[in-house]
């Protein structure tokens, strides 16, 4: 069975950007834990989110649904959800889904943090 692990770290000049690092597979089984993790971060009052996907090997439709489902409410609260460091395989699906119209993506976390400035 494929697993997923997550870590959050506050970044940015004001330490108000939550960088969530995702390791492993985000599939239909593990997407619930990712969703719960994100909800907890948002409930703690952090609306500026960056998903670091450098170590993410696969994201299922359910995983993409989490990002798309939360970005609207985050923006309504003055925040955003950005993606960084996607692997070529993940980025290929991201482009096929045409989510570049909804989510901003960056090559590195650093670039994503800079975009919040």
């Amino acid at each position, binding site marked *: 069975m494929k697993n997923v692990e997550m870590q959050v770290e506050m970044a940015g000049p004001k330490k108000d950007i939550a960088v969530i690092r995702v390791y492993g597979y985000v599939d*239909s089984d593990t997407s619930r834990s990712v969703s719960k993790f994100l909800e907890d971060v948002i409930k703690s009052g952090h609306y500026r989110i960056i998903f670091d996907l450098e170590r993410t090997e696969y994201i299922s*439709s359910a995983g*993409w*649904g989490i990002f798309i*489902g939360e970005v*609207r409410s985050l923006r309504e609260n003055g925040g955003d959800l950005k993606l960084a460091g996607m692997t070529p395989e993940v980025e290929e*699906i991201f482009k096929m889904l045409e989510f570049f119209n909804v989510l901003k993506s960056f090559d590195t976390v650093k670039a994503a943090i800079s975009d919040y400035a």
Partner: protein
Amino acid sequence: MAAIILATSLSIWLIKHFFTLSLKKTSELLGEIALFKAPTTSDKFREVFLNDVINRVVDQLKGQQNTSKQIQQTLNGIIEGWNRTLRTHQTDWDLWQKQLALLNQHFDQIKSQCKKILVVNQSLIKSDNGLASSMEEMARDVMLTSQTANEGIRSVGREIRAISDLKTTMGSSATVIKDLGELSKHVGQFISTIAAISHRTQLLALNAGIEAARAGEAGRGFSVVANEIRTLSESSKKTTEDIAALIREIEQRTQNVIDLMQNTKKLEENIRVVYTAGDTFMDIVREVKQIHTVVDQVNQTLQSTSNDSELLYAMMVKLKEEIDRTDRSLHIVNESNKHQQESWEAIQTFKTETANQFLDPGSQPNLESGRPDILDA
């Protein structure tokens, strides 16, 4: 072989030369006898002369016999040399014949194999071409599948966004409707208050009417007012009851809508269906990508194999040309072999005849016993 023939011919020439000389000398002597050119006519001298001549003839014949023996010895040596050489040659010839037969046999096998390889090679080239064509069709199918799957993923992307929007909208609507429900409850509370006031007004109007009737003529006007108030309060009560019923209906319906919106089971099911479809399309895209890679590899291998096959075919054609050329050379060798066989048989015959001609002991005169018989006659 040529040296043997040359030596034999030389020997024959020498033999003929010596014999010719010797016979010429003998003939001259015999001619003298025949002509009888005696220097004197006396019997004594004639006998002496004849004896002398005969002795000279006998000497001459002895010399011829010695020469003949020497020649015979020489010829024996030559024939023995011939035999040795011919025996060696026979062995070499037999070996050569065997090798030539084997060569012909192997060469026939090579020709046969070459033809088979050419046929197989041609079939291989045809198969390669057929396979390449099939692979091209497969690559086109794979490309179409990939395009379809990509389109499917795009649709799934749109569905995910639509579902997300729907969830957000439903969440917002549920909040609004819930607020509306709360508002309706407040209105209902107001209506209850109004109903209570109406009820109390109705009672007051009833009491006022009783009191006005007690007052008699003085209370007639007040009695009319009290009746009007009672009528109005009854009407108000009825209207309030109608409004209360309506609000209860609104509250019930609102609650139904809230319950319906909060029950997202069906929506979740639809979301799962969309996600499953999306994952399936993603799997298809990944698999198609792998198939595409394999098809590319197969095509490259086919191209390489085709090149190899064509190269092999070209080499085999060249080899066949070489084989044909060698075949012609071998044919010439076989023809030459036949000629050699004939020559060999001719040499054998020549040797036998030569041996018979020169080594027949019966053809030699016997001079060891003294005078030849001819002289006794």
